[in-house]
């Protein structure tokens, strides 16, 4: 093989290739959310973006968060949003323009937030995992243990919040006779 006059950049690993593909999918989904002329299509774009986020988690070897993402966001929240859209008559068919006079401001704020977040991600020295992950050992076991030890109060508070929301929904939906 003849010597090249310049040095080849290292080949991307398979994880990087997959990550870039998932990232493109996620960004496309997010763009559909804000640009689609049909509200239902926006909801579908949102589902795509949620899936992409789950894919990013899986690539980062956090299967539990990835699966939970699909379960909570795709399974529950997207269905809720879709339902809300489908039940709102007039929104179902026909185009609604996603643009109004504030889109310029919104775009500027979005770009600013993006820049700040990127700078933050680059600037923060992220803590590394203390010990290497052992193959086959369930990470969720540790997660579960910390839920009932260190984080028991926030965990219970969240459960309480959900319960209150549930009771509230029932009170609102009940027939008042």
């Amino acid at each position: 093989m003849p010597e090249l006059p310049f040095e080849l950049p290292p080949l991307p690993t398979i994880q990087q290739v997959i990550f870039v593909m998932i990232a493109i999918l996620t960004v496309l989904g997010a763009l559909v959310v804000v640009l689609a002329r049909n509200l239902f299509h926006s909801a579908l774009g949102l589902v795509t973006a949620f899936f992409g986020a789950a894919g990013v988690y899986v690539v980062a070897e956090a299967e539990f968060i990835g699966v939970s993402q699909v379960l909570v966001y795709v399974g529950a929240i997207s269905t809720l949003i879709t339902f809300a859209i489908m039940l709102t008559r007039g929104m179902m068919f026909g185009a609604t323009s996603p643009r109004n006079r504030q889109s310029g401001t919104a775009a500027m704020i979005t770009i600013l937030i993006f820049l700040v977040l990127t700078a933050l991600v680059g600037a923060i020295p992220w803590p590394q995992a203390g010990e290497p992950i052992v193959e086959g050992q369930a990470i969720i076991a540790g997660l579960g243990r910390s839920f009932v030890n260190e984080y028991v109060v926030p965990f219970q508070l969240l459960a309480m919040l959900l319960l209150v929301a549930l009771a509230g929904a029932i009170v609102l939906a009940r027939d008042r006779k």
Partner: protein
Amino acid sequence: MNWSDALIQFQYDLGAPQELSWLIEGITYFIGAFILANAALVLALLLIWITRKVVSRIQDRIGPNRVGRYGLFQTVADAVKLLSKEDITPSTADKVSYLIAPVLAVMGVLMALAVIPFGAGLVGADLNVGVLYLVALGSIGIMAALMAGWGSNNKYALLAGFRVVAQLLSYEIPMVLAMLAPVLLVGTMSMQGISQAQSLYLGPINLGLGWFIFLLPGAFLIYFISALAEAEQTPFDLLEAESELIAGFHIEYSGMKFAMFFLAQFLNSFFLGAIAVVLFLGGWQGPFAGQIPLLGPIYFLAKTFFVYVVIQWVKGTFPRVRVDQMMSFAWKVLVPLVLALILAQMIIMKLPTPMWLNYILVLVANLAVVVAVLNILGKYFQREQVRSKRAFEPKSLIGVMQPARPASGD
């Protein structure tokens, strides 16, 4: 030995260079996925044949018997017919969701294959969140049905789409909680781990009969009922109630696009049966499965086909429930019972009593749940029977009719 390790080793033995390990791994998993996905599609042909045979036997008919031996190729003929049909897209349909929905429906079902352990070392990916993964896949099916219902631009399809979401979301809760029972017992969500935990050693020999159904019959019953609803099988096939919704959310679909929904439904009932086998019926465990590894997949498939036939048996036996019955059964019977069951199991497993006593207590709690479910169903059916009999009696007699009294004086 894991199948992927074996396949990778085989490729190295053929002379594949070590530097391309990522490519070899990719090829290995591609081969695995390719075989599984295609086997599932062929399997669907068999499943449809089983359904038609079982249901026709129940109805005192012979069923398909013309094409091929025992009519085995009837489904192939049907598939060819569907392929040759005109592929209609309604002009007012929403193209994107209309076209993606059938693909998504099949995809969501096929993805379940990735974590189903067919034998020792024969599992696509032994995720340590396997059970949760299966639960998450259910949401893809819901999305597909919603997209089909909305995208068809047909009011019956849309109504059916609403029903799908109501039914699937309602029954997902008892199903997931019932799946939690074996997970709590074993302490892992890995499907392979749960299969392995259901062994029963008699000395050094693994009889493989420590199935969780013997310990958790209540959880199994609730899982089975919810799985029937999740698979959209009778008595919960409200989504295609012909008399109310014409055909369901796939009313506007024709040809192969319709066949995709059909395929997804049959495979879904088979896979829900497979999950029942893994969680409650010992997975690939069975007598001597430890000694002869080939027996594992045979046991697994035999059990799964058995569960599938039972599902079809139920389909041939029961009438369809009403929407309100379906909803109130999920929320007023199954959810409270399964919550109580899980809570009881959690507390019992933490009791300082010896392990065997804990297991007996869990069994007692489960039996109580079985009795409660059967009791409630029995009482309900009795009441409904009286009510529907009344409905057919002449209006003028209601309230007048009295049970025959013996004449006084005798």
